[in-house]
């Protein structure tokens, strides 16, 4: 079955079972390796992408459900070939340890800064709580988000 997907500004015709999780198509068909497979249950946030600007778990989003809605991955945040302000802040703060969660962290944080330019620490914690990091780099992730917020 052929399904049309709009990803990072491009349109793609995908031939796959309609129940296929979006994550599999992004990684395996479109070679977008920002989003990661973590738990496969929508619990960890490593697979986070934006669907019409809202953060969603791509590991449990069947491609049949996407419709005309626009998908943005970590790669889609790149501006003029360079990391955007938030991505650069994660690099500057060296927020990654193993890096597996970072794509999801950036995608989650982006949806906060879009509506709240100057979040408090509490607001950041509350917003980010659905994304897990097993290395424990939360302090660096906090710094990165705050750096992007004031930049």
């Amino acid at each position, binding site marked *: 079955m052929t399904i049309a997907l709009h990803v990072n500004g491009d349109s793609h015709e995908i031939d796959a*079972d*309609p*129940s*296929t*999780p979006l994550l599999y198509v992004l990684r395996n068909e479109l070679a977008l390796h920002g989003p990661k497979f973590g*738990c*496969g*249950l*929508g*619990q960890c946030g490593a697979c986070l992408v934006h*669907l019409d600007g*809202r*953060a*969603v*778990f791509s590991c*449990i*989003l*069947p*491609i*049949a*459900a996407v*419709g005309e809605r626009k998908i943005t991955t970590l790669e889609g945040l790149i501006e003029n070939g360079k990391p955007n302000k938030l991505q650069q802040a994660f690099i500057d703060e060296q927020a990654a340890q193993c890096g597996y969660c970072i794509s999801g962290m950036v995608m989650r944080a982006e949806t906060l800064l879009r509506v709240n330019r100057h979040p408090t620490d*509490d607001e950041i914690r509350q917003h980010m*709580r*659905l994304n897990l990091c097993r290395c424990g780099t939360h302090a660096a992730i906090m710094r990165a988000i705050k750096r992007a917020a004031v930049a």
Partner: protein
Amino acid sequence: MPLRRILFGAIAVIVILALGGFAWTWRPAIAPISASERPSVDEQTYRRGAELAAIGDCNVCHVGDSGKGYAGGRAIPTPFGTIFATNITPDMETGTGGWSEAAFQRAMHEGVDRQGRQLYPAFPYDHFTKTTNDDIHALYAFLMSQPAVRNAIPANELAFPLNFRPTIAGWKILFFRDAPLQKDDSKSEEWNRGRYLVEGLGHCGSCHTPRNILGAEKQSSAYAGGVAEGWDAPPLNTNSYAPQRWTADQLAEYLSTGWHRLHGAAAGPMADVTDNLAKASTQDVRAMAAYIASLSAQSPVPNNAAAPWNGNQVAGTFAEIIPIYTGACANCHNDQADVGPSKAISLSLSSALRKQGSANAVRVILDGVQPRPGFSGAYMPAFGSMFTDQQIASLAEYVRARYTDLPQWTDVREEISKGRQGGS
């Protein structure tokens, strides 16, 4: 419109009763105490008070901003307007710092505050009145030992005549009975203890018993199911539509952990209750479970701990939604006995799907089930931002058709719209 006439007539009755009842129910102020007059509290009493406060769910309504316990301010929506929960920390000016134990006991038993004002029954003194003085003593000791938080509470937003507190006196004459429970000698100690906690501090009937148009619990339909913050609070009596009849053991596990493998997860307002009961004493929770299980013991529904069932064949009608169900839901709700890390039970065991209305099923799909920070428990992602209204409606109708033999819901769209607005 008959309903409006009934309501108008009822309000008139209340006003008349208020005037008559005012003198009869008038209570004087109780002199304030100073901070130095507060009792010293030993550790055992404090702990007992903490356990009882958990059973009473005091922190659920009287929660303060940023989780400051008992500082109050939460808006409690009622059919009559908004009531703001008071500050019950011992702050002298904005809290209960000046309350003596006698004043606290009067509030619990009679619904009158220290200053002598009638309290709205959103504070469930219709249940708390059954609490013994010993338990009230421990609760008082616990609450007065909390850090004092300065937090002035906004005025309630109620329409006339309900914003006139003496009206409550009329309500009390009609509906409030302060008789303590009499022990039932034909039942076990545990059952009696459970009844005392469920009917009293636990105030389970506040949500699980339907209310009349004046907001009083219908005693003739005790535990026949009510509503809470837009969720249906299921019946606890023989009207229960749980696919498996609850046993006392199952209830005890569910109440203290928020989950049971044959019944699923506590969601919505019930999640606050089970988070609290995790902190209560095991014996008390067991006793509550024994009493609650007895309410539906005569139900014809069996409890056979049956293996999950994989549902009716309804493929044709739902061809478009089935791939979405398969990709989004069936990884966790896999109809296997092994529920996996999400603790997702087979939907054949779901009581939400067997309710007359779709409120609970829709809200769980929209908002998911999240364990409290620091708690491990059942988890379901919120699908509200992933799926369109059409997709959520189709999913709800699909699981209703697949996992029950009941007629299709007709209120799904309406409930989605209510759930999206976060309202009831």
